């Protein structure tokens, strides 16, 4: 069992803040770590890196395609570039440059040190509960079983993992034992852990702060459909554009919360 915490008074922190801190630490440990920014250094929290390591920080302006190409060139010459932007711009805007300049070149862009890139990391902007502890395991490519159970599997990523844990806690009161998997790596997906859990529970619900097409749920479905098909529900944005509203309002509107997980599980059981 992995050590995690769940409580009413849990501390909240934005993932991007943690990223900024980690980037500073990486910069200290490895002189090859560089940052390419497209006018979002403050928002993506790479600003502190830029202040501390000005000679390793490149600001290209609002130019995401250029950013991806510059990062590729840096990587091909042995640097470890992190390119920092919003998902709506990167990869939305520089998809072709990511595909050809970075991936087709196997350029080590946005890679965590000691892992061969390229790597894409996605964070939520809003604060989310710090559920992990220093001893919580984390390895790229390994899905972690945060809670074991026999009746249903909930597979979540990012900010939705905590909602999955809350759902499992509520379901326990009704004698439904949910297994909760933190599937933080979407690709390469941990098929072994997913199949093992599906064989045990025979029902899978996935939840992600993302479109239902082409995300975590789809990746899990690809694994299960070919190996061990079970009834499934994919919770996420139902192929819709975003809209204005508070984070909480929008999460509730699209059922990205533990109450909706419970509702969907009851339909499956």
């Amino acid at each position, binding site marked *: 069992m992995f050590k995690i915490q769940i409580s009413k008074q849990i501390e909240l922190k934005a993932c991007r803040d943690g990223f900024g801190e980690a980037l500073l630490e990486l910069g200290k440990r490895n002189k090859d770590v560089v940052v390419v920014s497209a*006018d979002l250094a403050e*928002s993506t929290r790479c600003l502190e890196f830029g202040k501390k390591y000005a000679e390793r920080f490149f600001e290209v*302006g*609002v130019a995401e*395609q250029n950013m991806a190409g510059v990062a590729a060139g840096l990587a091909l010459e042995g640097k470890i570039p992190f390119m920092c932007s919003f998902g709506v*711009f990167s990869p939305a805007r520089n998809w072709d440059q990511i595909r050809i300049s970075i991936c087709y070149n196997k350029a080590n862009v946005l890679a965590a040190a000691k892992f061969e890139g390229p790597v894409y990391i996605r964070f939520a902007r809003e604060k989310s509960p710090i559920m992990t502890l220093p001893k919580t395991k984390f390895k790229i490519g390994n899905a972690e079983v945060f809670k074991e159970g026999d009746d249903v599997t909930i597979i979540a990523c990012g900010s939705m993992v905590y909602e999955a844990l809350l759902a499992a806690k509520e379901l326990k009161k009704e004698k439904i034992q949910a297994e909760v998997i933190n599937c933080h790596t979407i690709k390469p997906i941990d098929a072994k852990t997913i199949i093992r859990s599906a064989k045990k529970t025979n029902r899978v619900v996935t939840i992600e702060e993302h479109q239902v097409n082409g995300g975590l749920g789809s990746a899990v479905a690809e694994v299960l459909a070919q190996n061990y098909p079970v009834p499934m529900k994919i919770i996420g944005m139902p192929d819709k554009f975003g*809209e*204005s509203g508070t984070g909480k309002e929008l999460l509730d509107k699209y059922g990205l919360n533990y109450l909706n997980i419970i509702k969907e599980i009851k339909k499956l059981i």
Partner: protein
Amino acid sequence: MKSNLTQLKKMANTLRQDVIKMLVEAGSGHSAGSLGMADIFSALYFKVLNHKPKKPNWANRDRLILSCGHIVPIRYAAMARSGYFPVKELKTLRKLGSRLQGHPSYVDMPALESSSGPLGQGVSVAVGKALAGKMNRKKYFVYCITSDGEHDEGQTWEAIMTAAKYKLDNLIFILDRNKIQIDGYTKDIMPLESLKAKYEAFNWFVLEIDGNDIEKVLKATEIAKRVKDQPKVIIAHTIPGKGVSFMENKWEWHGRAPSKDEAEKALKELQRAL
């Protein structure tokens, strides 16, 4: 609809107050650019544009594309004050279910002509609309508001070349040269000068004016409309945050909304200026 200079100046002040009230109510949004462009929006909606607010899909209307979509609060204010929708609706900015989305949403409000937000895209859409205007032998002008920071994007220059190739003299860019963007001054993030020489090298007709001087805005649009066989750009030097002293020329206000106290202070200052 058509107003005199004094009325336009007064309207610009009203629009600024609207923007402050909208942003504080929303709790987020872009203050500096919205305030800096109030004079131009007053001139456009109350004098320059050939439009019918009660008939937003009138076929011969001038098209206005807001390529730098983040300053849409000032456009909403100008639209409400000119009769597109009730002024009281301004308070719904960024609220769940509102058609006043934080960034322009065409499906929610077709009078915006196009959705925008990610920079460099509206300029191409404006080129397309100008091409269609020529093909359909329509007399309308396409006005495109673009920001200086937006010229970091390669797509902006692709659009600029296309407009010159097709000699789109029905296309007028108004370039908000406020010298700031989200993370700092444009000269620090990505130097742009000389914008005038660049546009001229790309075969555009260029005017450079004080964008907070309504009289100059009116004159520039009159001249620009008359120039033939070339697309036109009015480089409008504006003061970001104009009218609210503690916001003026501060890039930190690019993407920030005022707090309640700051809004109160800002509104007092704007009311005193009347």
